[in-house]
């Protein structure tokens, strides 16, 4: 942190602390002397561990964001949500078909969606959460997978959903079904796996593992490089 940064006041557990302007919420908590044990993970916006609720000065609205990605403002009142308890049904992916039936059985709550759009408004990843829920209700699994792709499972949508839907768990099922059943299979991949299983490269790999460094070096520097 550079010197002489202006400070702002934030309220943590109701108590005011002066922290450097421009801090993220995590930075502010640490600057104030809190050592985080839960409610933190990647610190880069990828894991969704740091869901946080806050209110800004003079605003009645309860807002939410990722503590590692949200910059504090003067007068901000902060409360971390370390964990959102959520339902996760157990299934065998090999026995689930990629269609609406899967969701009717495993996530019946989806069909209670009232279309209030609260989930979309709160999502820190700007995902069209309601739209993917609606896609699931229509049985459009691939669309739901695509729309929910950037979900990091912060749990905020489920936390605020009036219909108690666990959007993000339903979404992972949609993506898994899409990856496994709906996207085209790669012929190259299938062929290469087969070649290797048949031992096509065994001899040469064996030779390489027993060659001396000079031989390997020569082959390395001689290899043709293709970038496209």
């Amino acid at each position, binding site marked *: 942190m550079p010197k002489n940064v202006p400070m702002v006041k934030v309220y943590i557990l109701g108590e005011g602390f002066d922290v450097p302007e421009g801090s993220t919420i995590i930075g502010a908590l640490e600057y104030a002397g809190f*050592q985080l044990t839960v409610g933190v993970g990647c610190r880069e916006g990828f894991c969704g561990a740091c869901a946080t609720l806050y209110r800004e000065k003079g605003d009645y609205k309860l807002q939410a964001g990722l503590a590692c990605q949200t910059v504090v403002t003067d007068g901000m009142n902060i409360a971390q949500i370390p964990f959102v308890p959520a339902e996760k049904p157990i299934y*065998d992916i090999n026995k689930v078909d990629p269609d609406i039936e899967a969701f009717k059985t495993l996530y019946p709550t989806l069909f209670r969606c009232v279309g209030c759009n609260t989930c979309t408004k709160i999502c820190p990843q700007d995902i069209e959460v309601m739209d993917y829920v609606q896609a699931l209700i229509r049985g459009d699994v691939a669309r739901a997978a695509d729309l929910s792709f950037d979900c990091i499972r912060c749990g905020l949508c489920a936390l605020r959903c009036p219909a108690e839907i666990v959007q993000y768990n339903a979404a992972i099922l949609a993506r898994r079904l899409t990856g496994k059943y709906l996207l085209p299979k790669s012929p190259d991949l299938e062929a290469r796996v087969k070649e290797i299983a048949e031992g096509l490269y065994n001899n040469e790999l064996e030779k390489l593992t027993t060659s001396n460094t000079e031989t390997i070096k020569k082959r390395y520097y001689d290899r043709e490089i293709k970038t496209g």
Partner: protein
Amino acid sequence: MYPEYMRKSIRKVEKTRPERLKLARSGKAIFPMMSAEERQEVLDKFHPDYKKDARKKVRIGPNKGDNITTEVVDQLEAYSRIKPDYFDLKNPDYETDVLVIGAGSAGFSASLLAAENGADVLLVTKLRIGDSNSMMAQGGIQASVRPDDNPVLHYLDVMGGGHFDNIPELVKALVAEAPDAIHWLQDLGVMFDRNEDGTMLTKPGGGTCRPRMHSARDYTGAAICRTIRDEVLNRPDKIKILEHQPAVELIKDENGNVAGAVLYHLENRNYYTVKAKAIIIATGGFGRLHVKGFETTNHYGATADGLVVAYRAGAKLLYMDSVQYHPTGAVYPPQILGFLCTEKLRGLGAQPVNKNGELFVHPLEPRDIEASAFIRECTERDLGIQTPGGQVGIWLDSPLIEKLSGPGTIKKNLPAMLRQFERFDVDITQDPILVYPTLHYQNGGIEINDHCETNVNGLFVAGEAAGGIHGRNRLMGNSQLDLIVFGRRAGIYAAEYAKKAKTGKLTLSHITEYDQEVKKIGIDRKHISPMVLPDYTPASVKERQYTTEYQGTLR
């Protein structure tokens, strides 16, 4: 968002852009690759590992006398967190066949395969399940799948990238099982990027001779990690999970085999004991040790715990003198200092240029070479740009990507990157990004063979905590691959071992003995390890937190 003085430099970048674009379109190399001699020179002079105080001799334990990264030595030459006498090892809190420590992709694939091979698994982790480096990988995972590629070429690339120090049998396993690893992941439901005809979309990465990088947009690690996490969660009958309970010591038995671990619950501050027939360490790396004061891309829990506890239990380390700095860590805006700007940016055509907009290195040299060249540009040549916070960096000209492959390419292929910068008002489709090397990966680790076994009976390792696979420098995409290949192997072989293992009486005497060694070399009692969590409390605040004694970083 960029202040005016930076804008001035950006205008220079914009001025040279058309010429650089022409070059890139021509298909010719946009900058010559360095020769072997040039590479060595830039490494020797500028890579942080080669600095005078970067390494020191470790005085105790299995690697006694070896030169190891200084910050790691400080973790190894420290007292245990626990007092062995306090534990009643006759009545462990948990018992299992296989104990997996760490819940990233290595821990998950190990758990799945151990369970599939008949073992009951206990998976313990420091953070929330899945919150790990594995989740953060953006760029990709390597596997030689294209017809013009093959495992032999992959093998050569891995060796060259690792400065030919890699353990051959490990490299062989890595490249030979790569396509099957992708196949396995796809079968579990990972949505890898595919072309319209169904073939896999592949991109080049630093140091690869073929485009071999498979991706799932720029959430590759997340796509993989969350899929296998979901699969782990679907097997509650075989895999039990404990979160926020890092392992802080291993337990051995009277015969010298590992036989369990001591866990520390971060919330209720209880210690718990586990008895296990086999143990798999999958605790990842050490970015949060902030070696040489570098910022890091790593998650909050990357503090080398696995290395420390395994070392105390007698496991040997390999290549712990080598640290990977990712060339492109963000240096501006300050909120994202150290964050990773994926190598995929360069794979898609972004070029590194100095403050005058000049190219000074091929964009896809192996990482340590690329990073060293950036450091040279910012130090010796003084052609970097300084931020208001005092950091220096060079430009990564990201708008080129859209010029090369059309508007929308960034949104489609790099949504995470785009979002990351947008949050702080930088539009990477229009403006370049300011970058500098950031501490990224632990090249070395605990020594293993191709069954993931260590020199300690019953102790297996997978993922970043393992050493030897990548030699002294890992290439992009090979870590995501090794998590799966060696994660699965560790699971299989640990389950097999557990079936036959006969555990003797449990003991922590190795801790007592190690502590005595630490005392002998005169270390202050305040130094305890593993670190568990890094310490970001400002000194002024800490002064108010002292009770009578303040030990380590965990209060």
